[in-house]
């Protein structure tokens, strides 16, 4: 049993010891802090950069061009918006050079709301990321998926963006759904790999004998099977949708929850199979709702599966306003909550064609 942030740390350890990762870097990523969410504690190739996101992404591209395997972190995705041109370059270099130079790098960044992060620690990045061709984009909702997707991201010879749902980073995984090679007891794991509070200069982690696990990029996970309504979602909204689904099960509504895991390439086959079964679709994500990735999914579903639909597909997303306010009332009204997901599923299930 581990948290997602521990799973990420363990994957990075495997990356730097077995998969050739040469540099893990970003603001406060190296000692003493090891990341504002502790994701990079105790890693031997982790180092602190200057406070310059453009330099961080540029550094990652340059290292990748030089045949290294960099993992760069943007401390919060909210601070990646001055680097979109560089992210586009990472995504277009292979294409622009006619296959001459590939750019094997990983960018990881925490995304989304749920920690009362106010205007600049609550942004989402999924809509933006899916607009940048040439990138693969993944987003886990469980520690095990985080571990396996991050290893796949590192192994991939293309630029891969690893979006970390920040509200889930410290949530403990369910027993049995754990990391191969890590101890089951969470206190044991913490004592091995979590840096102590206070002085850390003498501390070194005691890594468990981790095994490689690859969650394929491009494959969704059916988080809950069901027949009434399909929910297409990822990250933080997966556990929310599962809670909503369990509550609705009591009311006789049998929800299928698909955790996309990969936003690009996404698992179209899984989506088609589910829509053919349930005939009703809800897309849930936290990003603002105008020009949203869920709208892409709905557009494609409508274009290709129109006559399979027994209800208009629905999107539940962040409202289209300039920020997420700090006060509870404001944040709750700005991004999907469990009650809203439940209501949307129920409405779809009740819809009479």
């Amino acid at each position, binding site marked *: 049993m581990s948290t997602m942030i521990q799973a990420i740390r363990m994957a990075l350890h495997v990356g730097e010891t077995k998969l050739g990762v040469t540099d893990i870097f970003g603001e*406060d990523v190296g000692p003493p*802090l090891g990341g504002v969410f502790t994701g990079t504690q105790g890693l031997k190739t982790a180092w602190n950069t*200057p*406070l310059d996101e*453009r330099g961080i992404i540029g550094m990652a591209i340059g290292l990748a061009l030089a045949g290294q395997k960099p993992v760069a972190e943007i401390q919060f995705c909210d601070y990646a918006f001055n680097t979109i041109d560089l992210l586009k370059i990472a995504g277009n270099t292979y294409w622009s050079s006619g296959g001459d130079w590939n750019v094997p790098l990983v960018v990881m960044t925490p995304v989304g709301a749920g920690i009362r992060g106010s205007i600049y620690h609550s942004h989402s990045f999924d809509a933006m990321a899916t607009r940048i061709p040439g990138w693969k984009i993944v987003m886990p909702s469980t520690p095990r998926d985080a571990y396996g997707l991050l290893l796949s991201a590192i192994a991939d010879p293309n630029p891969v963006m690893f979006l970390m749902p920040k509200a889930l980073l410290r949530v403990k995984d369910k027993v049995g759904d754990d990391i191969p090679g890590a101890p089951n007891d969470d206190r044991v794991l913490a004592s091995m790999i979590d840096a102590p509070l206070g002085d850390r200069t003498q501390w070194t982690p005691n890594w468990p004998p981790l095994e490689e696990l690859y969650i394929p990029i491009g494959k969704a996970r059916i988080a809950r099977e069901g027949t009434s309504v399909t929910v297409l979602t990822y990250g933080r909204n997966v556990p929310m949708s599962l809670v909503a689904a369990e509550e609705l099960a009591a009311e006789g509504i049998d929800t299928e929850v698909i955790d996309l895991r990969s936003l690009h390439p996404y698992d179209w086959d899984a989506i088609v199979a589910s829509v053919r079964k349930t005939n009703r679709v809800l897309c849930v994500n936290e990003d603002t709702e105008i020009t949203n990735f869920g709208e892409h999914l709905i557009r494609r579903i409508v274009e290709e599966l129109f006559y399979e639909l027994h209800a208009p597909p629905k999107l539940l997303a962040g409202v289209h306003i300039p920020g997420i*306010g700090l006060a509870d009332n404001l944040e709750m009204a700005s991004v999907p909550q469990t009650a809203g997901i439940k209501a949307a599923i129920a409405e779809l299930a009740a819809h009479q064609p």
Partner: protein
Amino acid sequence: MSLSSAVLTSVPPAGRFSAEQSLKVYDLMLRTRLLEERLIAMYKQGDGYFWIGGPGEEAFNVPLGILANKGEGVDHDYLHLHYRSSGTLLAMGADPVDSLRQMKNVASDPYSKGRNFAGHFSKRAWNIVPVSSPIEVQFSIAIGTARAQRAGTGAKGITIVQGGDAGTAEGDFATALVWSSRKGNELPMLMIVTNNRFGISTPFAGQHGYEQVSDRGKAFGMPTAVVDGNDPEASYAALAKALEYVRTERKPYLLEAMVSRLRGHSSASGANVAKNEVDCLERFEHTLESRAVMTRAQMESRRAAITAELLEASRHVRDEAPPAPGTIWDYVFTDKNHVGGER
């Protein structure tokens, strides 16, 4: 100009404060410190989600607030501040209760209506441009208010922009240097770097190729200076000199203030008392005591009075209403449904 500045404009640069001036500055520094402590206490008691602020920067930021030409529009100074600027705000006359309101994110928060973190000030009536969380962007934005005040416009105010040391690695800092110093197009802009030798956990050493950030101004032909930001008299003098230059020459100036970070980066790092940092307030208290301007007892009683006042204010704020959910839709546009030409 603020009342407090009237008291102090007679101080000769680099000189000692008069007794009256000392009391004024001390009171503002103490009030700022106690406000920050109240905010931290509120955070620790669950009356707020996040704290960031300026304990350790009072000796510099209070003089800045005193010397600023306060008011609205180009004839007053635009202030593009950092998130550790409560000393500047209080010196300009801000009511501390408003900071408590922002901390508690209640609807009455005048700076952001419960939307933004503590320390994220905004006050158009005083030309205080909204403090934004993204580091250093204020340096790119400040060139715009400065252009509106450039030589030849007749504008009396100037633009003041402030940020931390680590943030100078962002390209925006270079943008301000480049745009403010274009020959024949210089901008009346005081750029301030408050150097506390840290960006969150990352020390200054090892991240920069120079001893002092202000050296970067030299290639651009602008005057630069470094000041001990833990000394209110030195800070006052350095600011007065820099402001005088910018106001008169209408050209840029780069000032670096060496300051302390007494409570760590923010509540995310615990907001605990830091070791091995000079405490400017303690130091100033020693000075005032040794100069017999104030006694310990007087200081203690001042401290007690302000502490009580702030505690009382925070109790009051605790009962204020949160913003209603529907208010998220307010202030997206100045018009709900503005159509061009309908002026």
